[in-house]
Structures are given as C-alpha cells and as structure tokens.
C-alpha cells in the first residue's frame, strides 16, 4: 500500500530537483513519441534542448531566447501576484493587445516627428492601456461581484476584434497600398524599441522583465502588501481580520497584471514585431499562465520557467525544420513537460510512504 504523507514544510531539495527530473522524464517520453513518428529520438531531443544553447549557431539563438522569453516573464510576473491572492486574471492576452494598440497608436500619431519624448509616452500609454483593460473586470468584480475569470476572458475576444479593426482601419499604413497592418515602428527611430546592445537581443522589454522579477520578489518577501497577497490566497478569512481590504487588493492585482501585460505588448510591437497586424498577438498572454504555474508563482521560478518555455519554442522550430517534426509533435512535447513538472511536484509537498498507516 502506497500512501502520501504531507510534509510539514515543502522540501527544498525536491523543489529544486523536481524540475530536472521532470525534464528528464519528458526527454524519455518525448523521445518515444518522436521515435513513434519515425524521427531519430536522441537527435530530436538534442536539437530542442542543446542546439539553441550550445549548438553551431547559438550566437544567434541565445539572444532570441531573451526576445521570446521576456514577454512571457513580464506577463507571468503580473499574473502570479493575482494568482497568489486567488484573483484569476486569464485575460492577459487581451491586455497585451490593448497595451500594444494604445502604445503604438500614440507612436503612430506622432509620426514622423522625431523627439525624445515619443517613446516614453508610448510606454506610459501602453501600460495605461493594459491597466484600463484589466480595470474592467476589476471594477465589475468589486462593484457587482462579477466573476473576473469570465470577464477577462471575454475581453480577450473583444480585444482581438479591436485589433483586426485597427489594423484594417485607423492604424493602417497610409503608404501600404491598401494592405492591412500599420507602419513599421522599427523604421521610426523615436518609437523604435531597439536593442540596447545590437545583436544581444537585449531590448527594454527584457530589462523591464528583469526589473519586474526583482520588484515582485521584494514585494512578496519584504513588503506588507506582499504579505497581504499571500495571506489572502492562503486564508481569506484570516486576511480580513488582519485588516486586508479585498477591494483594494483586487484593484491592485488586476491592475498590476494588466499594466505589465500592456507593457509587454508595447515593447513587442515597438521592437521585435514592429507592426500592428491582424495576427499580431501570438498567445503570450495564455502561455504566460502556464509559465506562472511552472515557476510555482515564485519570481525566480517564473524567470527560469519563461526561459525553459522559450527554449522549447525555439528548439522546437529548429527541430521542425531540421528533422521534419510536425509542429503538433512539439505541442504534445510541451504538454508532456507540463504534465511531468506538475506530477513530480508531488514530491515537494508530500512524502511517499510504503506500508499501511499506523492509525487507520
């Protein structure tokens, strides 16, 4: 008889070891999957995990890890604050879109004026846009007790329609021969979120993501508000006795995650992406939810989880091209990785005991 016994304290050793064990297990299962598809398993695994980091062209892929990982981390940090307090914003995708739209809108309105204040203004408006979009579920929740999961999710679809409408209408490039999509902000110096050091992938979005990690760490560990967030998540009733104002907490958590998602959108549209187009959003807002959980809602964990997710995306694309793996196989592989991480997490919080319990 196998049974689980809850640990008094989560095991530190296991919490560090489980991600490694999970990655190993994924490699084995993934290898089997790839072999079943008739692809060389070891080669495929090597391509996904090794190639981007240490392969022949890693000088190119390493910076790409920053570009791909930064928006994920930035959004996930914001989400994790709310998740810790039991406030479920799953509409980060929408806030990301609105942040990009409003920020880029400001930049395009100034075109072709070259001035130092254009970009800071875009950043401000981008964050504000994401914040406002998240304030809709926040205010509805605090005023009418409306479920924030549903409202924030619905607003993703609204934001997507708005994005399509903007890239076909208001923000359409007047010199684009009628084709959809805005001017390319990469070609407008004042609005361009360029790499700080060329070729390193280090743009302001990456910097913002790192700052967010540090900020979240300090907030959660050293600040009263962080304590309130954790307390609300673990024991809502105790939190009320401790004087936590739930309304303010909802407004703060949703607003913060919205602003960070908006920032991520703004940095993406003004940097790596360049244009507002119908399909500008690529699901970062949803993937970030996974990243937040993979990182166990811990700032440093999220940083690592974001990097791991980015790695599987980049390595997965290389494997597609080099080995002809279908993109669906990569998706299944990512799903497996998640499954194993979640499954092995058990060892962190529980001890496995064999034999029958002493007291029945």
């Amino acid at each position, binding site marked *: 008889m196998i049974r*689980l*016994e*809850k640990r008094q304290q989560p095991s530190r050793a296991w919490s560090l070891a489980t991600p490694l064990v999970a990655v190993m297990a994924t490699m084995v299962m993934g290898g089997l999957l790839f072999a079943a*598809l008739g692809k060389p398993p070891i080669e495929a695994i090597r391509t996904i995990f090794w190639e981007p980091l240490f392969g022949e062209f890693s000088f190119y892929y390493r910076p790409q890890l920053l570009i791909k990982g930064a928006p994920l981390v930035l959004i996930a940090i914001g989400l994790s604050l709310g*998740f810790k307090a039991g406030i*479920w914003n799953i509409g980060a995708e929408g806030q990301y879109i609105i942040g990009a739209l409003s920020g880029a809108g400001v930049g395009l309105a100034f075109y072709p004026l070259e001035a130092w204040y254009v970009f800071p203004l875009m950043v401000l408006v981008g964050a504000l846009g994401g914040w406002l979009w998240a304030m809709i579920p926040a205010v*509805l929740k605090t005023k*009418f*007790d*409306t*479920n924030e*999961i*549903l*409202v924030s*999710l*619905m*607003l993703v*679809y*609204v934001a997507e*329609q*708005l994005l*399509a*409408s903007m890239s076909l209408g208001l923000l359409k490039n007047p010199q684009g021969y009628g084709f959809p999509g805005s001017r390319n902000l990469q070609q407008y110096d004042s609005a361009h979120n360029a790499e700080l050091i060329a070729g390193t992938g280090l743009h302001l979005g990456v910097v913002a993501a790192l700052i967010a990690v540090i900020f979240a760490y300090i907030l959660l560990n050293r600040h009263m508000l962080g304590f309130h967030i954790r307390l609300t998540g673990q024991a809502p009733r105790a939190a009320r006795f401790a004087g936590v104002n739930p309304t303010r907490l909802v407004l703060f958590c949703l607003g913060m995650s919205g602003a960070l998602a908006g920032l991520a959108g703004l940095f993406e549209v003004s940097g790596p992406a360049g244009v507002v187009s119908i399909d500008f959003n690529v699901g970062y807002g*949803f993937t970030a*939810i*996974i990243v937040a*959980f*993979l990182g166990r809602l811990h700032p440093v964990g999220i940083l690592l989880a974001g990097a791991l997710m980015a790695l599987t995306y980049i390595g997965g694309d290389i494997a597609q091209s080099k080995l002809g793996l*279908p*993109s*669906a*196989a*990569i*998706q*299944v*592989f*990512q*799903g*497996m990785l*998640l*499954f194993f991480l*979640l*499954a092995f*997490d*058990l060892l962190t*919080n*529980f001890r496995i005991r064999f034999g029958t319990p002493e*007291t029945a």
Partner: protein
Amino acid sequence: MDLSAINPVLLIASLMVAATPILLAAIGELVVEKAGVLNLGVEGMMIIGAIAGFATAVESGSPTLGFVVAAAAGAALSLLFVFLTQVVLANQVASGLALTLFGLGLSALLGQSYVGVRPPEMAQIQLPVLSDLPFVGPILFSHDPVLYFGIALTAAVGAMLKFTRGGLILRAVGENHDAAHALGYKVVRIRILAILFGGACAGLGGAYISLIRVPQWTEGMTAGIGWIALALVVFASWKPWRALLGAYLFGGVTVMQLNLQAAGVAIPVEYLAMSPYLITILVLVILSADKSRAPAALGRIFHASR
C-alpha cells in the same frame, strides 16, 4: 437594409445548432465544478473528441459510433487530469491548461490523414406530421438526434443535482470536501467520476462540431469553443437550465450578428463581431446580482490527511 430578410424561425433553428456543442461541453464541466474541481482542459478534450469521433465515423461509416468513441476519447484524456489532480494532487488550473495544450497537439497528430475527408452524414429526425408544422416544426421537430440528447442531458443533470441523493453527495463534495470525507463519502472517487463525465461530454461536443455543425476535420477546429463553454458555466452560476439559456443566448447573438450583416444593417462589422462577448459580460453583470456562489471547494486540493 432589409430586416424582413431575416427569418426568425430559421434563426432560432440555427442558433440551436450553434449552441449545442457549447451546451454539451458546459454541462459536463458544470458537473465537474459542482464536485469542486476546475478543469480548464475543456478545449483539449473537445478537440480530441472531434478527431476521435470524426476518424471513427469515417472508418466505420457510422456517425453514431463516432459519437460514442468521441465520448470515450474525451473521458480517456480526462484521465490524465484525474491522475494529476486527484492522485498526485497537482494544481488544477495548470493541469487543465496542460491538458488543452496536449489535446490540441495530439489531435493534430492523429488527424493528419483526415484533412479534406468528408464524413458520413447523420440523418435528421423527421417526424411525419410534427416536422411540417409551421413555426414549431423547424424549431422543435427537425434536428439531429444529438441536439435533442444535449437538451435531455441538461434536464437529466438538472434533475440529478436537485432531486437525487447522488446529486446531494456531489454538491456536498464540492462545498466542503473535508466534511464530506468525515461523513464517509469517497471524495476522490466521486470527483474522478465527475471528471470522466465532464471529459465524455466535452468529447461529444467536439464531435458535434466535426460531424454535424461543420462537418469536416481541420487542425484546431474547435477555435475556442471550449473556453466559451467554461465561461458559460460561470455565466450559468452552476445551474443547468441557465447553461441552456446561456448557450442559446450566445449562439443566438453569434448567428444574429451574421444575419444583420447579411441584411445590410449599417453597424460596423467588427463591433457586431464583438457583440456576443460584450453581451455575455453585460448579462453576467446583471446575473451577478444573484448571489448563488461557486462551489466553495472549487479548485482546492483535497488530501485525506488526519
């Protein structure tokens, strides 16, 4: 503009079809959530049902068998969720998202050879006199059997939750799993059954899309309907008959906006396309005056430690 071109009878009949996959998946998820489990993997289970049902129907020539297999496939995928959340006690939100990611990928792999294939048709029920009745005929008596099954299932689940001992136990488990456990109910076993039921319903909903509503197989064809179903459960404040209402409302607004476009109503199209979501939010705000809350133990991990 020509509003007279919109035929209300046909509008209602087609919104019922549009609503059925959402309804099927939502009813399943409703039972899952009543048991205190939040499974965000509906989209993944739906698309697995869509391809499993489609492949079976094509290979066997029987859409009915397709639906049976789709339900089994949805339930089979939900077993993964069972393992993660009930056996190794992982976080439910993350497990559900993993299920969706996995399901979307797996369905695409399985479906590679079914792109562009035409499935066998499922006969509509034609009742000799009733189907020809004006107005009520097309609305009530000339649909496919699965649509009626969906409505029957809603009624059955509603009755089960309200009137039976099983429903009472399910709700007890969802409200306070520790108390239910103390009373001697097998919390984990009940939840596992609920999750499997949810998976089967999602699978059915997915197969309804690939076999009846569209019908064809393409990658990612559920296109977010699983998420709508999840939203619908909250919208319905965990009441089956409200889920039915909500599904029809959502399907209705979607079909209605297309009708308005075709009739040439001069409202900007993108705002019409947003309207189903905006109206859902609006109704949600109105409904939240009703204080029927979520199951208290929703999403919380149960471990029978003493």
